[in-house]
C-alpha cells in the first residue's frame, strides 16, 4: 500500500478527504468521529432521524413471530406520533482514491433499536448516490437526517393531508416504548438547547431555565416561581397555573409535577392543602368537624349506607376521631334518635327558602340526602301546622302547660288536669275564689271579655249575666 502514498492522486484525495471531514465535524459536531491509519480513513457517523412536525407512525406486525408462535393478533399494530426516530449508525471506510475515483465503503449499517428492517436497500441507495469526483458524505447525512431515505424506501407515504410512516416489526409492542421514550428524550434535549423569550419578563432564556407547561406555553422558571409563590402565599390557588392570558381565562391550573418543579416543598404542601380546602368547600357533602379546636373537613364516608336508615348522618372526623351527627353537629346520638328540633329546623328552613328544583336545594340534598330531607320537611310542616293550630285554637294551662281547647262557653277555664283556673284569652291564672274579677274590673285587659264577641248570639247576652249559667260547662 505504501506505493500509493507516492501517487499524486492519492495525495489530492487525502487532502480532499480531510477537508470534507473538517466541514462535517463543524456542521455535525456530535455525529462524526474519525480514525485514521496509514492506508485508510475510518468514519463513524451517528445520524439522528428528524421528522420535523410530529408524524403518525404505525408499527405493524411483520408476521415473523406471530405465525411461528401462533399467538393472537391483538397487538398486531400500534400507532404513535413522533417527531424523531432513533439514529442510524454508519461505519464508513474511505479508500485512498475517494473521492476522485472510488466511493466510500460502508462496512456496517445499524439502526438503533432496530426500528427499520432490511438495510440492504439502504446500503444500495447510499452507494448509488456517489459520483466520482464529489464528496458524498454530507449528502448521505442529510438524506438520512431529514428522513428522505424513508420516503425512497417506501416506509413513508403521503396522502392528501398527512405523511404516515409504516414500520414492519416482529414485536410492535416492544418497539413502541423505545421509540416513544427516545422521542421524548430528544424533545427534552432539544428544548434545553433552544432559547425562548419569556413573555412575562421579556428576556431570552435557555430552555433549561424555562419550563414547558402541558398547555404548550413556555415561561422562564424565575417568572413562574415569582408568580406561583405569590399566589400560593396569598391563597390564590386558582392562579397557580399557566400565566398566558387565554389559559388564565380558561382557568388552566398547573399539575402537581409542574408545581413541584418550580416551588419549594413547603410551598407544594401549602398548595396541596389549599387545593384540598377548596375541593372541600365546593363539595356539599363535606361538613366541618364541630370540635372548635379541630374543624377539619369531614368528607362523606365512602361506603354507602342506606338513605333513610339514619346511619347516613354519622360522621367521624379523620383528624380527631370525634363521631358526630352531620345534621345537628352534636355528638352522635344513634341512628334512631332524631336530632334536637331547633338545629334541624335551621336546615329545613334553609331548604324551604330555596325554590323547588333549585341548585340551593340540590346542594342540601347532596349533603343530607333527599329522602331524609323530604321526611324532615314533612314532619316539620306537620309540627308547624300543629303548633299553629294549637296556638290559634287552644291555650296553655299556666300551671301544668297542657294545651286546652275551648269548644264553647266563656273564657274562664278550669284545667281538667290540675284544676287551675285561668283566662282562655290571655292565659293568666285566675283566683279560685273570685275568678270573674278578671273580666269585671274596668281597666283590666280582659274587662267585659268573658265571652268573645263572635259567640254572642242575637240574644245579646251580657257577660255579667251569663257567667252564672255557664259556670258548670266551661271546663275545657
Amino acid at each position, binding site marked *: 500500500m505504501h506505493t500509493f502514498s507516492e501517487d499524486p492522486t492519492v495525495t489530492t484525495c487525502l487532502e480532499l478527504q480531510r477537508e470534507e471531514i473538517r466541514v462535517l465535524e463543524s456542521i455535525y459536531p456530535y455525529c462524526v468521529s474519525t480514525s485514521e491509519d496509514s492506508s485508510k480513513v475510518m468514519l463513524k457517523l451517528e445520524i439522528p432521524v428528524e421528522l420535523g412536525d410530529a408524524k403518525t407512525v404505525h408499527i405493524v406486525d411483520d408476521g415473523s413471530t406471530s405465525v411461528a408462535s401462533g399467538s393472537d393478533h391483538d397487538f398486531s399494530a400500534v400507532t404513535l406520533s413522533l417527531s424523531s426516530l432513533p439514529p442510524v449508525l454508519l461505519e464508513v471506510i474511505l479508500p485512498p482514491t475517494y473521492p476522485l475515483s472510488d466511493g466510500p465503503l460502508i462496512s456496517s449499517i445499524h439502526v438503533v433499536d432496530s426500528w427499520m428492517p432490511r438495510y440492504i436497500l439502504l446500503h444500495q441507495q447510499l452507494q448509488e448516490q456517489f459520483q466520482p469526483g464529489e464528496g458524498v458524505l454530507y449528502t448521505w447525512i442529510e438524506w438520512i437526517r431529514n428522513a428522505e431515505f424513508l420516503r425512497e424506501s417506501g416506509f413513508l407515504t403521503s396522502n392528501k393531508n398527512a405523511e404516515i410512516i409504516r414500520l414492519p416489526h416482529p414485536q410492535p409492542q416492544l418497539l413502541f416504548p423505545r421509540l416513544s421514550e427516545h422521542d421524548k428524550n430528544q424533545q427534552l434535549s432539544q428544548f434545553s438547547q433552544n432559547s425562548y423569550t419569556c413573555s*412575562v419578563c*421579556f428576556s431570552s432564556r435557555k430552555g433549561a431555565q424555562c419550563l414547558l407547561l402541558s398547555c404548550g406555553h413556555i415561561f422562564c422558571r424565575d417568572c413562574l416561581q*415569582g408568580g406561583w409563590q405569590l399566589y400560593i402565599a396569598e391563597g390564590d390557588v386558582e392562579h397557580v397555573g399557566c*400565566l398566558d*392570558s387565554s*389559559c388564565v*381565562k380558561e382557568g388552566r391550573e398547573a399539575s402537581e409535577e409542574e408545581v413541584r418543579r418550580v416551588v419549594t416543598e413547603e410551598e407544594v404542601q401549602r398548595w396541596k392543602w389549599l387545593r384540598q380546602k377548596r375541593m372541600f368547600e365546593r363539595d356539599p357533602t363535606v361538613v366541618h368537624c364541630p370540635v372548635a379546636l379541630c374543624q377539619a373537613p369531614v368528607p362523606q364516608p365512602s361506603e354507602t349506607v342506606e338513605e333513610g336508615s339514619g346511619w347516613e348522618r354519622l360522621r367521624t372526623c379523620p383528624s380527631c376521631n370525634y363521631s358526630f351527627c352531620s345534621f345537628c353537629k352534636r355528638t352522635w346520638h344513634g341512628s334512631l334518635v332524631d336530632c334536637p328540633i331547633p338545629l334541624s329546623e335551621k336546615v329545613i328552613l334553609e331548604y324551604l327558602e330555596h325554590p323547588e328544583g333549585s341548585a340551593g336545594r340540590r346542594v342540601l340534598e347532596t349533603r343530607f340526602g333527599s329522602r331524609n330531607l323530604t321526611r324532615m320537611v314533612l314532619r316539620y310542616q306537620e309540627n308547624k301546622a300543629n303548633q299553629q293550630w294549637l296556638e290559634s285554637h287552644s291555650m296553655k294551662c299556666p300551671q301544668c302547660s297542657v294545651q286546652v281547647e275551648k269548644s264553647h262557653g266563656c273564657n274562664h277555664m278550669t284545667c281538667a288536669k290540675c284544676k287551675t283556673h285561668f283566662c282562655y284569652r290571655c292565659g293568666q291564672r285566675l283566683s279560685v275564689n273570685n275568678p270573674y274579677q278578671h273580666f269585671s274590673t274596668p281597666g283590666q285587659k280582659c274587662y267585659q271579655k268573658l265571652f268573645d264577641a263572635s259567640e254572642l248570639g242575637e240574644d245579646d247576652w251580657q257577660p255579667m249575666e251569663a257567667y252564672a249559667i255557664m259556670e258548670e260547662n266551661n271546663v275545657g
Partner: protein
Amino acid sequence: MSDARLRRVNKEIADCKNDKSSKIVIELIDNSPYHLRGSFTGPEGTPYEGGHYEVDIVIPESYPFQPVKMKFITKVYHPNVSSASGAICLDILKDAWSPVLTLKSTLISLQSLLCSPEPNDPQDAEVAKHYMTSRSSFEETARYWAQAYAGAPGGGVKGGAKGGERDEIAIAGLEKAHVDQFEALGFERGKVIDVLRRLNYRGENVTKISEDKVVQELLKN
C-alpha cells in the same frame, strides 16, 4: 423580584415609545416608574371618536403577577366606567388578569371597551340603564361628554372643548323640554335634572313614568 418589576416596567415604557403605530402613549407623571399616565384616542365610529382619553396607571408591588390599577382621568360616559370616579369594570383588570398582559395591551383593551360596552356588567348602573333604554340618546350623551371633556371635535358644546360652558341637561343625558316642564312647576333646575337622571327619564321610559311619580320624587327631601 422588585428588580424584575422595574426592568419590566422600563421595558414596557420604552417599547411603547418606540411603537408609533398603536398611538398609545405612556408617560411618567413624576419620577416614579410606578405611577404613570396612559392616553389614547377614542375609537373611530363610536361616540368617543376624536376624544383624547387619559388613564391613571398605578403599578402594584407584585406587578406583573397582579393586575395594574387603571382608572380614567378623563370623564367618560360609558356603562362600564364610573361617571363620577372614572373607575373601570373590565375583567382583565381583575380576575382575568394575566402576567403576559402589558400596559400597552391593557390600554388597547380599554380602547376596545369603548367600542363594545357590556351593559350587563355595569360599573355605572345609571349609565347602563340609559344605554339599555335608548341607544340613540345614550350615544348623544356620550358624544356630548367626549366633546365637553375629551376635546372631541363637534358643534354641540358652547365654547368648544374643555373649560367651555357646559350644558348640564345634555351632560345628564336629558331633554330640555322635560326639564323645563318640571322646572315650570317651581322645582329647582338642579334638582329636576338630578331626579330625572336617577329615574332614567329617557326614551320609552318617559311614557312609563307618570308625572306624579316624578313630582313625588321631587318632593322627597
